[in-house]
């Protein structure tokens, strides 16, 4: 378990500059899943990679200050809620589960466009759920369960 924060100047400087661009790339992968290789799962994993980079460079306290353990579980459930919610909405509107054409009258677009937007919506849900689940897996594998864990200060060097 990583209880000690290994501070390395080059790693910390380069990682903190790269993280926003990695996150933009992850959201690009999610949003362009219909056109280029990618989609929800791939973008979610890249988002988790950006968080794992902060974890490795700055320690557990820094990454928990961004997304706490509790928040990651909430996000995971919220992602699944978006996915199943869109599917159930199509069911409630009279079609099959995940039959996006039923969303066309609500959104006010043509049926192929509604299908495209419906797929994008579930991809967002998948990306969110995947990011949160992989993030909590990383914390379970490599984090330390000391009390007072969800704090902003980094762990003291042991």
């Amino acid at each position: 378990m990583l209880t000690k924060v290994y501070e390395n100047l080059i790693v910390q400087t380069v990682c903190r500059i790269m993280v926003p661009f990695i996150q933009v790339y992850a959201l690009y992968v999610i949003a362009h899943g219909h056109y280029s290789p990618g989609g929800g799962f791939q973008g979610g994993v890249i988002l988790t990679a950006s968080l794992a980079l902060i974890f490795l460079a700055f320690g557990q306290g820094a990454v928990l200050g961004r997304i706490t353990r509790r928040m990651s579980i909430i996000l995971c459930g919220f992602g699944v809620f978006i996915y199943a919610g869109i599917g159930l909405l199509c069911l409630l509107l009279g079609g099959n589960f995940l039959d996006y054409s039923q969303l066309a009258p609500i959104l006010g677009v043509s049926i192929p466009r509604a299908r495209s937007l419906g797929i994008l919506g579930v991809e967002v849900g998948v990306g969110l759920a995947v990011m949160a689940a992989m993030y909590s897996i990383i914390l379970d594998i490599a984090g330390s369960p000391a009390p007072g864990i969800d704090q902003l200060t980094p762990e003291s060097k042991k």
Partner: protein
Amino acid sequence: MLKKVTFSKYLATFLYLIFFWLFLSGHYDIFHISIGIICCAGISYTSTELLFRYQPDKKRILIIIEFIVYSLWLLCQIVIANLQVARLVLSPKLKIDPRIVVYKSRYLKGDVAKAAYGNSITLTPGTVTLDIHGADFYVHALTPAFAKALKNGVMERKVAHIYHK
């Protein structure tokens, strides 16, 4: 998260990220650009204090211009050092004498300048920055010639010229 962040820093981060998004995405229609704006706005909100952590000594635009000029010079150095290492490694005698030297920097202050110099050392073949403690750079060099070229301090003066006056 917006406690330490001014609006100009947020806007600068947002512009960097939206430029990156437009570079990645080939679709320049309203739908994709609006998705890009929403995504970049959200990421800028959480990541501005990552990008703009320190206040530099001189104007940022000057630093950017001088950095681009320096990177062109660095490219020449990389080509020269690549040829030297290739000649060294491909010869049957293999006259390498690897050593770790401590280089004490005199002009560099601040994290970004030191990281830039450390990365420049690593980028030029023959030398690799292992660690940086304060002003000491622990560098692994392939031959005494590379270590001596490091000690000349030409690269350090150029990097210090970028970030400090």
